[in-house]
């Protein structure tokens, strides 16, 4: 079971969180023309990476904040976590 450092609450067990997928996906802006391909990429197409992956988790049984977690999909090592509005360098 992962041990996730919530930037708001500190170290918490995985069972307090729910997974939210790839954090690098950007929603196309509202009211903007979007091609089929662009939209498909946003809604459906994800890379199944081996290695470092920036992903979203929600601290659903805690502060309810969505956070970004940099995790290795092969080893489950968590390198860094970020608040929703934090820039990931």
């Amino acid at each position: 079971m992962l041990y996730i450092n919530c930037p708001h609450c500190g170290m918490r067990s995985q069972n307090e969180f729910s997974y939210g997928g790839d954090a690098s996906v950007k929603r196309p802006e509202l009211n903007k023309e979007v091609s089929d391909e662009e939209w498909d990429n946003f809604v459906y197409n994800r890379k199944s990476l081996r290695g470092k992956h920036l992903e979203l988790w929600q601290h659903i049984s805690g502060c309810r904040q969505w956070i970004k977690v940099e995790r290795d999909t092969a080893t489950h090592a968590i390198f860094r976590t970020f608040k929703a509005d934090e820039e990931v360098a």
Partner: protein
Amino acid sequence: MTQAFRIENGGLINRDKKLSFKFNGKTYFGYEGDTLASALLANGVHLVGRSFKYHRPRGFFGAGVDEPYAIVQLYRNGETEPNIKATEQELFEGLEAKSVNCWPSVNFDIGAINNFLKIFLPAGFYYKTFMWPKSFWYRIYEPFIRKAAGLGVASTKHDNERYEHKYEYCDLLIAGSGPSGLAGAYAAAKNGAKVILAEDKPRFGGSLLTSDVNIGNQSGKDWAQGIIAELKTMPNVVVKNRSQIFGYYDHNMLVMSEKVSDHLPATKKYHPNKRLWYIRAKEVLISSGSIERPIVFGNNDTPGVMLSSAAKEYLKVYGVLVGRKPLVFTNNDSGYETAIELKKHGVDSVILDSRKNPESEIIDEAKNLGINIKNSFVVVAAQGYKKVKSADIASISEDKKQLGKIENIQCDCICVSGFWTPTIHLASQSGNKTKFKEEIDAFVPGQSKQNEITLGAANGVFSLEETLKTSFTAGSELSKKITENDNKIAIPNVVEKKSSQHDKFWCVPLPKGKNYKRFLDFQNDVAVSDVEIALREGYRSIEHVKRYTTLGMATDQGKTSNLNGLQLVSEIENKVVPAVGHTTFRPPYTPVSIGAIVGREVGKHSKPTRKSPMHSWHEKNNAVFVDAGVWLRPRYYKKGNENLFEASKREAKNVRTNVGVCDVTTLGKIDVKGPDAAELLNRVYTNAWLKLPVGKARYGVMLREDGIVMDDGTTTRISENHYHMTTTTAQAANVLSHLEYYLQLVWPELNVNVVSTTEQWAGAAIAGPKSRDLLQKLFPNSDVSNEGLPFMGYMEGDLFGVKARIFRISFSGELAYEVNVESDYGNFMWEKIIEVGEEFNIQPYGTEALSTLRIEMGHVAGSELDGRTIPFDNALDGLVSKKKDFIGKRSLQRSAFIAEDRQRIVGVVPLDKQTSIPEGSHLVKDDKAPLPNPKLGHISASCWSVEYDNPFSLAILKDGKNMIGQKLFAMSPLKNKVIPVEIVSSHYVDPKGERVRS
């Protein structure tokens, strides 16, 4: 029965407490502190079961978790449990156990015929034989295999035992209380670290309980007891016996199963049977020791052949002799230690050592005691069927290929030692890549992956002195990092006898003309010849060899067989062992009860039960409840002998003619507040929200980004920047997360807060033509006329002194209102509505009537919003704004979603107006068409229309828009029904929606 094999004195058992127990129906006696195995051996019982495949007689091989043979069916306190290791089961008064895998009895087992058919049962037998003909599979092969497979029999009764889960955090978790674990725990505890020390056996001390060593001028056993006694007094230390750490998971999470009650005749009141500990440790010290491995020889599965360390443990811990004429067969000094202990108790053994002339202090001691030692000698085969009677022995050449002249010597047991295998399971599970250590012919942990360190025998270190030194140091260093204390511990001096190098020899060759079975895996009857077949047939990967031959599988997971299997594969393949590699060690290390894993999450405990504030009223008024997610909701209120159908019809009819009241507390409620609240709603819902005035409600549909309907509900503008959103009961939590996702991640610039208020409000829906009259009486000071409170209007009111919210919204399709009060006033509100409503013939109605009302109105609910439908499918396309953008809008342009013949909701009426259509039925054009009959749609919801007094259903039907008036068939193979039906509008009742506005 006398305990003929119990020695006069000695052992750690309590001889003052005699216990009686039954094995295979016969009564025996043992002592408190015995295991079932030691007590049986004390009574001279060696035959405990039959083997898995050949049904060969099985005895005891080990004395602990590694035991491959002694699997019994246990009976305790009216219950039974299969696959219990007799070597682990502690004796209690009245214990009953039976042999498994034998019929009619362990002494005469018909399945043993397989032993003579073994030529037909080689590796892969099942795979090869049951391939054809295909039709035989279900009728003959599968039932046969099922009958033959498995060991014990699981109970079919409800398990009344209680199992608990516990979450714990510590600085240092220590797996195993042998010398390494004790030293590490002691040093860390002295530094003030929070320590958990886990031992799977009832007694602490590990190898110190049986070894002949001195630590700090005490015997090893006494030293261990002293350390444990001191640890137990320390507030920062938890010591747990009967507790097996069986899994090492990510981020230093380990799981431990504590057997709280298995050693007692019955579980004590309020105690669990087992407790599962989830332990998050900062550091982990793996001190799991090592397990002796056997040497492979002919008929090495005969009862009476056992590990030499087990024989020593039975003697030193339980005061039990495993035989009176033992033969010790060894390739290292451990066998000598056993022989020396036996000699001290007056039992003369013969030692066969595969080595030519080894020299060490231990060997010298054996020689001085006058023990008969034969060097370069091996056991070729054990003789005897249900018990060892003698052994064929022979000298062996230096290259270990040639046997000398075979002679037979009398013996009643063979104690075998093929050196030691470190227990690296936990380290390997942690992600540690193990490495092969040539000097000990076994794998040890390599570079640490998590915060774990493996020390002592588990790390391939068999010198006590070195083990203590490294473990004391590790305990100090690891704890110092955490507590920043540095209390120096003096490492005690150690007296131990030095050992000589073991012999790499592991398998005795077959003598000419003999075809003895030489077993590698005793639990699964995997012999050397089976592995040879697998390799001959092309299996190369050790993982494949394992699965084809079943080597290392089953309940012992090859604790005594894996390494010898690897040796064999590497020999045949002419590779070194590390190149072959070992199979993956996966949790659990030992079998764990399913009950322990499930814990308290059984039945109603698996989820919290949520009840509305009016629950007790419903109970008092004969409500029959239904689970709605985690909520309990009244399904109907039973009157007299009514059944569900009659009651719900009565309740629904009363709504259509008078007035009804329904508990709608369970609806999800979310407060949406802030200057940008309207903008958020406008983006979340498909319809327009920017111009909704204060005091008005609106129905909205929200989509996922893929265009699928996520949820629907009404949202009301309470004040300028305050909206009250409702969701369906089932989607409440998901909708809140959905809103939070967009507010926190996608549009953080929106100044809005959302919070769940589901539990803050109790809700009652008042529906029916007389609902306004009732409402007026409930709120005499409010103007609830059609003008004062029009359809989709909202106002606050005073309900006999309680502040209430009144919404004019309708799910039933009748003139209807929803009244909300703060939860604590819910019951007050409900009782007032019932009391005042009496003159209007009010009746409460449950979810069944609620469904009936919404179905015949064509209102969609969860059965239509099933995660596969878009607004069009639900005839909600009128609510989809063409002007503004919203979540999921772009997806609605997908070709499938705008297809001409897109599925759409319709009504379905059986032609005979009698037969109810089962939900889930398929709609087809031709009921006689060959299977698979093309499906045009499915029935999503069915009811008995109280308006027309005939069955009515909703369906999602391909090209539904153009199918009105068509005749189709509803087919339900499950219910074996074919019903001719007509397609009608989904708005079966009041299609113009006049009632809600009346």
